[in-house]
């Protein structure tokens, strides 16, 4: 059979939309073709699986639709609304301007926006600059420099005076203190110095004595410990030597016994070797 269903026949059959001869042809084809049958079954299975997706419940909300047939009047048109809103804005601006007395004026290159009558700005006293020439400027600079120099000189002088006064004051204070100290030192009596020196000597003697005592006892202890350690060392050394000698003696003894055994073995083997040919000779004859 050369018939092979087309893709669209195939799907129509799957969804039960194929009728008549075409349907029979596809059914026949499926009966004879195992691979096609398997594919058909797989699609059927897929449809079975897909049917497990259920619908979601939903409540229809009320839908309000504007009546399109209603006549649209001129004042409802968007153009009218736009024009009216612009007019309303302008009117509002005018009312606000009237209430706040906004004045807008342009004079020369000035734009002025003011609330109420604009107040005249106070004129500054004009500085006459027209009659000044280079010499005057030079004079003014010189005068200014002189004034400045004079002011600086005065300031320096004042600072110098202040510094001198401060140094003088400090010197006076410090020298007073030093004098007082020297005076105090010179008033100390000879006895006081002697007693101070004596006490210093006594303290030194005691300190040296303590130091020597302490050093002696420490040295003694150290020497004792050293002697004990040395004795221990000697004892240990002696024990080790004894053990060594003993081990050597044992080893010598073992060697001697081994040598003895070996000698005996050699002797016995010589004896047996010497005795054997005599017997063989005897058996030959």
């Amino acid at each position, binding site marked *: 059979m050369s018939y092979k269903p087309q893709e669209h026949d195939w799907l129509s059959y799957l*969804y039960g939309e194929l009728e008549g001869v075409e349907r029979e042809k596809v059914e026949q084809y499926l009966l004879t073709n195992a691979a096609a049958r398997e594919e058909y079954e797989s699609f059927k299975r897929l449809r079975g*699986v897909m049917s497990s*997706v*259920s619908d*979601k419940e939903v409540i229809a909300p009320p839908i309000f639709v504007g009546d399109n*047939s209603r006549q649209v009047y001129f004042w409802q048109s968007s153009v009218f609304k736009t024009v009216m809103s612009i007019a309303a804005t302008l009117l509002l601006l005018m009312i606000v301007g009237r209430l706040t007395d906004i004045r807008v004026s342009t004079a020369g290159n000035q734009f002025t926006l003011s609330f109420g009558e604009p107040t005249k700005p106070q004129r500054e006293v004009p500085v006459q600059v027209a009659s000044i020439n280079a010499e005057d400027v030079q004079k003014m600079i010189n005068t200014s420099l002189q004034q400045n120099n004079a002011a600086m000189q005065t300031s320096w002088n004042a600072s110098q005076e202040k510094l001198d006064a401060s140094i003088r004051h400090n010197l006076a204070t410090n020298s007073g203190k030093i004098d007082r100290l020297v005076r105090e030192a010179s008033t100390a009596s000879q006895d006081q110095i002697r007693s101070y020196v004596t006490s210093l000597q006594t303290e030194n003697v005691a300190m040296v004595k303590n130091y020597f005592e302490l050093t002696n006892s420490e040295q003694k202890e150290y020497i004792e410990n050293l002697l004990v350690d040395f004795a221990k060392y000697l004892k240990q050394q002696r024990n080790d030597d004894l053990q060594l000698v003993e081990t050597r003696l044992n080893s010598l003894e073992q060697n001697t016994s081994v040598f003895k055994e070996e000698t005996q073995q050699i002797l016995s083997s010589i004896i047996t070797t010497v005795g054997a040919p005599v017997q063989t000779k005897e058996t030959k004859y």
Partner: protein
Amino acid sequence: MAETLVDIAMMHSDTLITRAKQGDQNAQGKLVQLWYKRIYNFSYKFFLDHDLAMEATQKTFISMCRSLAGLQDVARFKSWLYKIAVNYCREEARRRKGSRALSFDIVWNKEAEDSPQWEGSGHRHHNPESQYHQSELSEILQEALLELSEEQREVVIMKEYEGLKFREIAEVLNISENTVKSRMYYGLDGLKKILEKKNLTKDTLGYEL
């Protein structure tokens, strides 16, 4: 898919549509009530996002009420309505793509947290474990749907979940029936591969089918 009273009402709503077409607001309201759930679910599966789905659905019905008078053939109301919905979904998707990247994880987690699937559709499963598996499977499937291309996704949703015929889908999308079937074929094939990649084979699904 078992037909409910609403489905039957939707199929026999010619008179209602004619009245709505003539400007009867009551009839329009009833049409909205009848079709709202379908259009919302289509949009929801398209976006996997409640807010976006609500927005697209509301726009669809506002547009429906405004332009119903221009509907030529009442019998084609269904495909006409889905056409509006598809256009709004595409427009919304374009807008969202341009303004912000919709993180799938965020959407997914948000959905998982906000509204567990078993709350809305627990009519078939009495066993909580089975209910849980069902909801898990549903989530995986919707995730897989979102991985399809927009063209394939809208065809698969319309065919598989909205039950439109291939002819109706072709009308909605203004393409040939064969193109619809081709998109459907590749869409299903793509879904199969995605599910296999997620280890959702027939063996693992045995208990679900």
